[in-house]
């Protein structure tokens, strides 16, 4: 029997599901090259000669050719600042949560201590409760805390503690730690302890053993944990929604706000750029993981 034998039904179902997965993405990209201002009506590709804009009553040709909406997008300061916020949050939270999460994985996998079971369970909680519960929990915590602190320390005006990038970063770190810890733990579980034991027998202390033996072996796990954390952070909507404040809008929040008011092909241009970035990131994640195998 051919182990790779495929039934035509399975192939048909697979193709249909892939169509379902990709049709919306194709639609997004397709319409980012749409000539019409009113995005949903496709009125033809932007050609070399179009689209035509009205500037002071004169018909002017777009200087960017088919990339008209991308040019428009690059001039949108709100998008640029939201993009900057997204990256600041993602980088900071990824670095911190990767360090803390890796430490936790080491502790849980290589050490015995009193709060071990409690720690392991607490790391599973954010995965099995809906994100919104954690989001509003943090919202309630900070709003109560800020009210108390602001009145106790007599803070007024700009000095007042308020929601902003800081709260978003703290919230992101908290929901990313479990993911990093579990990914690194899975990697540690698959590792032969005898290498570390051999290092210790040969007189290396704990720190040297970690630096020279354990860490080099778990680097791929740490890297894929960090990449997972980074993508989760960039993608996060719900927790950011409840913890952001004025001036700390991230891209998903910006897009959501825009969608409730107006729809423009700029949004499709943004989607196309985003999908391109995802393609590159996923490509790298796969590279890291195939090195691991």
């Amino acid at each position, binding site marked *: 029997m051919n182990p790779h034998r495929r039934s035509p039904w399975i192939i048909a179902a697979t193709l249909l599901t892939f169509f379902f997965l990709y049709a919306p993405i194709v639609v997004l990209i397709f319409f980012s090259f749409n000539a019409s201002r009113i995005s949903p009506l496709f009125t033809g590709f932007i050609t070399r000669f179009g689209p035509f804009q009205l500037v002071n009553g004169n018909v002017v040709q777009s200087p960017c050719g088919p990339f008209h909406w991308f040019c428009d997008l690059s001039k949108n300061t709100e998008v640029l600042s939201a993009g900057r916020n997204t990256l600041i949050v993602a980088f900071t939270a990824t670095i911190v949560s990767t360090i803390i999460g890796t430490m936790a994985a080491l502790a849980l996998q290589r050490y015995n201590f009193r709060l071990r079971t409690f720690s392991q369970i607490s790391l599973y909680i954010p995965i099995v*409760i809906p994100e*919104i519960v954690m989001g509003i929990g943090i919202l*309630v915590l900070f709003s109560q805390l800020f009210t108390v602190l602001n009145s106790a320390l007599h803070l007024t005006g700009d000095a007042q503690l308020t929601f902003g990038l800081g709260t978003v970063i703290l919230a992101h770190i*908290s929901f990313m730690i479990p993911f990093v810890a579990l990914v690194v733990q899975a990697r540690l579980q698959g590792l032969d302890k005898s290498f570390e034991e051999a290092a210790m027998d040969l007189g290396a202390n704990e720190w040297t053993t970690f630096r020279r033996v354990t860490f080099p072996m778990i680097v791929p796990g740490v890297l894929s944990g960090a990449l997972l954390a980074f993508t989760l952070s960039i993608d996060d909507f*719900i927790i950011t929604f409840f913890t952001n404040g004025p001036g700390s809008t991230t891209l998903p929040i910006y897009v959501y706000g825009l969608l409730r008011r107006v729809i423009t092909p700029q949004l499709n241009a943004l989607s196309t750029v985003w999908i391109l970035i995802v393609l590159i990131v996923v*490509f790298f994640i796969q590279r890291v993981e195939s090195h691991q195998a």
Partner: protein
Amino acid sequence: MLRRLRENKSAQGTLLIVPTLIFMIGMLIIPLMLTLVVSFGHPDANGGVIYTFSLDNYIRLLGYSTDCPIGVSTCFNSVYLEILWRSLVLGFNTTVLDILLAYPLAYFIARIHPKWRNTFLFLVLVPMWTNFVIRVYAWMMILRQQGVINSLLGWFAGLVHVPFTPLSMLYTPGAVLVGMVYEFLPFMILPIYTSLEKIDNPLYEAAADLGASPFRTFLRVTLPLSMPGMVAGTILVFVPVMGTFIVSDLLGGAQVILVGNLIQRQFLDARDPTFGSAASLVMMAMTIIATYFYTRKFGFSEELVV
């Protein structure tokens, strides 16, 4: 001091876990407890909290209402129970549809030649990591009155000279279901794939050698062995469906209110964090109970982290 630490394995472990515990206690356990405390309180006029101990918010969720016909002071209003029930049903439907869609695809990738597997996994990961909100937007473009489906249907109707009135698909419960199924499909595909990929070929061969039909092999070998993947996928789909409010907000409009929308509105528009807290705790309890019975029946699995 440092010397003692060097010799004490337990202290080293504790030291490594402390930062995690600070975050988990400070940003998860304390907030949850605070949510519980707030849910017993009453809102003040500015959306703040007056701390009391009353179960009013929970009684209100169960249907007690003061918003009644003239002449009646209290009555039964099932609106919140309906919202909770609707969310549960939607979570169930989404999960079932996702299993039906994901299984053949996961099976296909698991049985294909290993050199092609990464390519197909890549094709699953790209939609998964494309931003959630952007993917909802894609469905808005597809389903709206002048959207992709209606344009295509209109064009086809023009071709065969049939009068055509655009279908209203956006802002219906169906649109929300399609959106949810789409958003969480990759989270079902990956764990099912992981468990199917672990099944050794000789197992299939043995089943075939012993005279089992392909259907019987599937029923007695493949399906039971892929159960851990389906359990993990169900948790990864059902839990977020219960708590998501963007899909119903953008694709369901005012038509489809889920418990996520209810909570969000209490915190933002209605300015009643106490009722919102109660609703969110009730939802969490419902999710945990559903997941608990489900995993107790089918077993917990390690394939949760995809």
